[in-house]
């Protein structure tokens, strides 16, 4: 039973009558340690609310019993007395001097703030030939994975085993251990096939509830969120207000950048610190800017917790920086793509945090690959628009960069490859495949490193009892981090085999049942695994980073993905509707281990970026279903042409970086830039719903 109120105190009455119909009725008092959260020092979110609720949808009472009995109980039958209070809605209300506190220990409702400073921004602006600035706003966005949160738990002796749709089994294990006051080894997490995550399944959902219930009842307990429950209860993309200002010289070289990004982090901290830390590093865009002041802050409100959602704040920031690149280009009369090419970070450049990019910075290659498409689109569009009529077309370009892995924080991965005495070759991968294909590429990488075919591998994935910690499936890190660990594991096992066979590095391996054959030049050695095995190779990798100082100086990421996307749109000036006609996406992925899977991430990211730009806005209490909350359908996503650029990253497996989030980040900027090209309207708020665009067109005098 969840709170219908965004902010309220409550008391629970006599649960006796209800308890007699059910196996158990759980409240806050039943949770051994009633607090969880992503950060070790912020366990601010209760499993079950304790006397007060901070957002609509917060869990209050758990009804545990036979499915039909539980479903037959209405919310009104649970004896709760509510004392609703006026909620804090939006960051302006949160920042107000007399604002009620959402979290008692967070004065001013501030979660945290910080940023990057380099050079002298004020002086630099004074020398700029052109300056562009604007304030851009984004809303709550819902992950809308098609599989809602689901899982079940079973007590096995003194251990609790949880099968759950999750992106992060080891974090789940450790969090459940804290909640249950158990040693981590007493908790087993078995990830089920995950029907979509996008960052929304990085936080605890069903895990602590089924664990507490199964522990108490000593029988298996399952929980599947209904869709309205999933939408109300789960984390969201942070709404953002981004005030940005950029300046350049007469040749169009960027000189200064000032960005303040304020985020609505909702009722609980969740991934708020991650977003607020990542954005200042990225907010100047993938460009050389010698003078930078970027700042991020996050405020609590009585709204769903804002958490992790593909891009961690960078999609919002990119909307701002790309709009201003367009404005500066237009002011100077420079082609918008050319302007970006002039400023693109390249290998050898130093970023605003003082990091010199030694390798793998392929934005210029991406833009160059797009140039013919850009020119062709402009010609076609000019011809189309010349004909007049209520429809206008436009083309936009969006660029991005994205640091792979956690910001300035250790996020190691350990992978293992084993060969049993019976000749079974197994990859033990703790990396959860949430659809992006990590199961496939980890096998490819391990197979390549070991020197045996991928098809001979069995896979054990995700189970914390059987696999090592590969870190979370998030931050576009699995290919880079777990992939490198898998490569090292494969090489480790190969090394052991070559030593056993006394063979050299060029030896060719083959495996047939329990016989492992090693051919080295003319020599052939057969290893009988029944006597030699089991053999286990292990590899670990943790991307090298350094902490950032108070000016944001340091090495936040070991590598960055770069990309540029072009969007061609058609706007109906009279109705304000936007149809995206086609996208061309050029992504520097370092190395495409599996091109089809890389394209899948780009195409899927584009679909979510299109939704962010044009139709997705989560309104608590009003869009708790999939017909009021709109995600793109098959008829909304255009043809996408993918161009894969491979500027090799030496730290990555075969030179690979990551692409999961990069697919999404440039899309909304490209679409909004195209809308401006078509209509002269610069969108300052997303989603650009038809009524908003039409109002802007009319206000700009561009209506017919």
């Amino acid at each position, binding site marked *: 039973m969840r709170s219908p109120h965004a902010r309220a105190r409550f008391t629970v009455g006599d649960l006796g009558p209800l308890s007699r119909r059910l196996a158990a009725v759980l409240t806050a008092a039943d949770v051994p340690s009633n607090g969880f959260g992503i950060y070790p020092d912020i366990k601010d979110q209760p499993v079950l609310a304790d006397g007060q609720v901070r957002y609509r949808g917060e869990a209050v009472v758990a009804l545990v019993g036979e499915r039909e009995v539980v479903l037959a109980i209405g919310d009104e039958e649970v004896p709760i007395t509510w004392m609703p209070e006026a909620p804090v809605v939006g960051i302006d209300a949160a920042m107000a001097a007399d604002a009620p506190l959402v979290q008692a220990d967070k004065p001013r409702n501030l979660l945290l703030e910080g940023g990057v400073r380099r050079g002298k921004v004020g002086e630099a602006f004074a020398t700029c030939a052109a300056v562009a600035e604007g304030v851009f706003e984004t809303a709550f966005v819902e*992950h*809308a*994975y*098609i*599989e*809602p949160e689901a899982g079940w738990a079973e007590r096995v002796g003194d251990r609790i085993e949880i099968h759950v749709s999750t992106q992060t089994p080891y974090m789940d294990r450790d969090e459940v251990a804290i909640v249950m006051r158990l040693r981590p080894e007493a908790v087993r997490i078995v990830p089920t*096939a*995950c*029907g*979509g*995550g*996008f960052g929304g399944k990085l936080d605890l959902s069903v895990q602590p509830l089924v664990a507490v219930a199964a522990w108490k009842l000593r029988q298996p307990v399952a929980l599947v969120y*209904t*869709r309205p429950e999933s939408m109300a209860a789960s984390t969201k993309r942070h709404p953002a207000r981004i005030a940005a200002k950029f300046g350049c010289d007469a040749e169009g070289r960027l000189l200064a950048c000032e960005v303040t990004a304020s985020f609505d982090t909702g009722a609980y901290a969740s991934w708020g610190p991650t977003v607020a830390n990542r954005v200042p590093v990225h907010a100047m865009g993938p460009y050389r800017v010698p003078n930078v002041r970027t700042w991020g802050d996050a405020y609590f409100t009585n709204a769903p917790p804002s958490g992790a959602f593909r891009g961690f704040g960078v999609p919002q920031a990119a909307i701002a920086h790309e709009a201003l690149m367009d404005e500066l280009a237009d002011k100077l009369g420079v082609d918008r793509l050319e302007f970006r090419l002039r400023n693109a970070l390249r290998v050898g450049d130093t970023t605003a945090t003082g990091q010199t990019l030694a390798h793998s910075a392929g934005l210029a290659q991406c833009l160059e690959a797009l140039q013919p498409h850009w020119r062709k689109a402009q010609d076609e569009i000019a011809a189309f628009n010349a004909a007049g009529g209520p429809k206008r077309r436009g083309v936009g370009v969006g660029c991005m960069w994205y640091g792979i892995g956690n910001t300035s924080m250790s996020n190691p991965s350990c992978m293992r490859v084993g060969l049993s005495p019976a000749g079974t070759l197994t990859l033990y991968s703790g990396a959860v495949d*949430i*659809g*992006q*294909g990590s199961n*496939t*590429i980890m*096998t*490819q990488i391990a197979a*390549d490193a070991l020197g045996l*075919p*991928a*098809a001979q591998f069995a896979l054990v994935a995700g189970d914390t009892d059987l696999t090592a910690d590969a870190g979370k499936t998030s931050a576009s890190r699995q290919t880079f981090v777990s992939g490198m660990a898998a490569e090292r594991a494969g090489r480790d096992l190969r090394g052991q085999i070559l030593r056993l066979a006394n063979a050299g590095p060029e030896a060719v391996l083959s495996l047939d049942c329990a016989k492992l054959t090693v051919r080295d030049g003319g020599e052939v050695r057969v290893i009988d695994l029944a006597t030699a095995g089991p053999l286990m190779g292990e590899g670990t990798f943790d991307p090298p980073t350094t902490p950032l100082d108070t000016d944001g100086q340091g090495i936040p990421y070991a590598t960055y993905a770069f990309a540029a996307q072009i969007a061609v749109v058609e706007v109906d000036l009279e109705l304000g509707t936007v149809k995206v006609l086609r996208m061309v996406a050029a992504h520097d992925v370092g190395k*495409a*281990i*599996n*091109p*089809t*899977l890389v*394209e*899948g991430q780009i*195409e*899927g*990211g*584009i*679909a*979510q970026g299109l939704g962010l730009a044009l139709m997705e806005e989560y309104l608590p209490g009003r869009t708790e*279903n*999939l*017909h009021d909350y709109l*995600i793109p*359908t*098959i*008829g909304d*996503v255009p*043809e*996408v*042409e*993918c*161009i*894969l650029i*491979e500027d090799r990253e030496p730290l990555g497996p*075969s030179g690979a970086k990551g692409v999961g989030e990069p697919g999404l980040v440039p899309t909304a900027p490209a679409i909004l830039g195209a809308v401006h090209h078509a209509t002269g309207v610069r969108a300052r708020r997303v989603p650009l719903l038809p009524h908003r665009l039409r109002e802007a067109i009319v206000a700009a005098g561009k209506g017919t």
Partner: protein
Amino acid sequence: MKVDFTLNGRSVAWAGSPITRLAAALRCDLGHTGTKVGCDAGDCGACTVLLDHRQVCACLVAMGQVAGRVVETVEGLVDGNGTLAALQTSFLAHGAAQCGICTPGMLMAAQELLRKTERPTRGETEDALGGVLCRCTGYGKIVDAVMNATASLLAAPPAGCAPGAGRRHRQACRLGEVRRRRHSR
């Protein structure tokens, strides 16, 4: 209530409350968990099955309406030997499934279409699959897979190749090649 009906070509007897949703009966009582439930409200199409050869959301069908009728689910696409249908092979070859939760719904919607039209146009494919939401793929590879579901019989990926070969990779999958990729549909 007892409900006798045909499920993937076999006679099945089910008993329970007639207002039970077909999706729940398939998953919870009949061991057919291939049909997925995304919303229970007809908004997402993940639970799409064929009822008397027409695609419907199984979450919107009362068991009381199923007696004597023909139900087909994703489990029925494989043949008696467990060999995948050409449509399923086409999905694999095109990389049309990522997390897979919408895939059964997409397959059944496509099955209705392909029985009527062997080489559907892009528009026909979109109309047929328009009621199934996908959050992972951006739909492009799904459309490719359905439009080429019969042609793909000619281009099954070679054994041992990671799924990623695609219909344009008639040769064995080679890791380590730089490739410019173009989609034209």
